[in-house]
């Protein structure tokens, strides 16, 4: 593996991983979030393979993309507004607008008109503008003011605040909380702390040895010998997890009380079997026909 190839592969994988995670965090559409998350997983798998952990890369793709992502996308299909079309018209920072490009705003079906969404956008515009000012120092791109932020005066913001309590029974339908700036501050602080710790203590004791190219065999031996307990414990945990999720998702909980009561009533007293009595078998069966024949012959004999 030449050095330039390694650098190129690392750049592509790291970019895909970070950009995918960033898109997952900022897009307004849940479905796009799932797809961006898949990109991030693929990028991290590439980094694993670059780190000579082939088994981990393959496991990453198999488990995360084959398992988790299918679960997530299945869950998103059940959700309210998976495509993010209702959120698309709200205020967004530059990066959110970039990752939500192409989403067509659509009025919610439950009577919320577009103007109210506009007002809500104004309500969040001030918080978004605060967010823009401070975004994490890692990102090279400068975030501009939000889409509605330029137009939102203070009077409009007050109007938006008065409108805010009306939609969806006091529940804001936005996919992100109003504490986004605080969350961005927190994430930036965590990232800076981690990077600072890396910079301040770079004296790791490096070992120049190359790992076994057949590392999967070594890992398998370790799993079967030294870490047998952990392996069995993980298997037991998966078993318990299966039991738990089946127990949670079993179809015994009904969305409303009436259908549940109906089902419970059906289960409590089964409908009695109506006993209509058997019809006399005289006409049909051959045995009875024989018997009737004999009765006939008896009558004849009498």
């Amino acid at each position, binding site marked *: 593996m030449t050095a330039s190839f*390694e650098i190129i592969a690392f750049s592509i994988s790291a970019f895909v991983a970070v950009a995918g995670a960033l898109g997952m965090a900022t897009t307004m559409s849940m479905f796009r979030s799932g797809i961006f998350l898949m990109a991030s997983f693929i990028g991290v798998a590439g980094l694993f393979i670059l780190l000579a952990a082939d088994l981990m890369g393959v496991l990453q793709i198999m488990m995360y993309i084959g398992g*988790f992502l299918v679960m997530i996308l299945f869950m998103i299909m059940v959700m309210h507004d998976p495509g993010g079309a209702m959120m698309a018209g709200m205020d967004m920072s530059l990066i959110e607008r970039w990752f939500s490009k192409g989403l067509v705003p659509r009025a919610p079906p439950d009577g919320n008109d577009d103007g109210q969404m506009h007002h809500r956008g104004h309500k969040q515009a001030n918080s978004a503008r605060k967010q823009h000012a401070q975004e994490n120092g890692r990102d090279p791109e400068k975030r501009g003011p939000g889409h509605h932020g330029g137009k939102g005066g203070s009077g409009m913001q007050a109007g938006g605040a008065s409108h805010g309590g009306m939609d969806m029974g006091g529940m804001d339908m936005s996919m992100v909380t109003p504490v986004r700036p605080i969350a961005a501050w927190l*994430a930036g602080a965590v990232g800076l702390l981690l990077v600072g710790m890396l910079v301040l203590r770079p004296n790791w004791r490096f070992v120049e040895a190359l790992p076994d190219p057949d590392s999967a065999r070594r890992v398998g031996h370790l799993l079967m010998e030294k870490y047998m307990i952990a392996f069995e414990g993980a298997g037991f945990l998966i078993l318990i997890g299966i039991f738990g999720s089946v127990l949670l998702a079993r179809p015994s909980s009904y969305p409303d009380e009436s259908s549940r009561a109906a089902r419970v009533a059906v289960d409590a007293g089964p409908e009695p079997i109506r006993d209509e009595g058997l019809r006399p078998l005289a006409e049909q069966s051959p045995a009875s026909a024989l018997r009737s024949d004999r009765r006939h012959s008896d009558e004849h004999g009498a």
Partner: protein
Amino acid sequence: MTIPLTAYLVVGAILFAIGVYTVVAQRAAVMILMGVEVLLNAIGLNVIAFWRFTAPEDYSAQIFAILIITIGAVEMAIGLALVLLLYHQRQTVQIDAFSELKR
């Protein structure tokens, strides 16, 4: 080995920060689970990077990463089952609606 360890660790730190942002800022429960997955991914990346650069003869780090993936799978399954149950009860996935355990 032309890529230094610090580069991998910086990628892991950025992923961790994005995961923290997602967990705090997102409102839908499914999105929070996605953020947790990104967090676990960052941790696995850090573990594997340290294995490659400081102890390449000891393969325990890969066992650790495998266990992280396994526990992430179980957590995801249980979490999604809970989300489905709560969605059936409350008809929403916004975690603000789940502020109490009783119905």
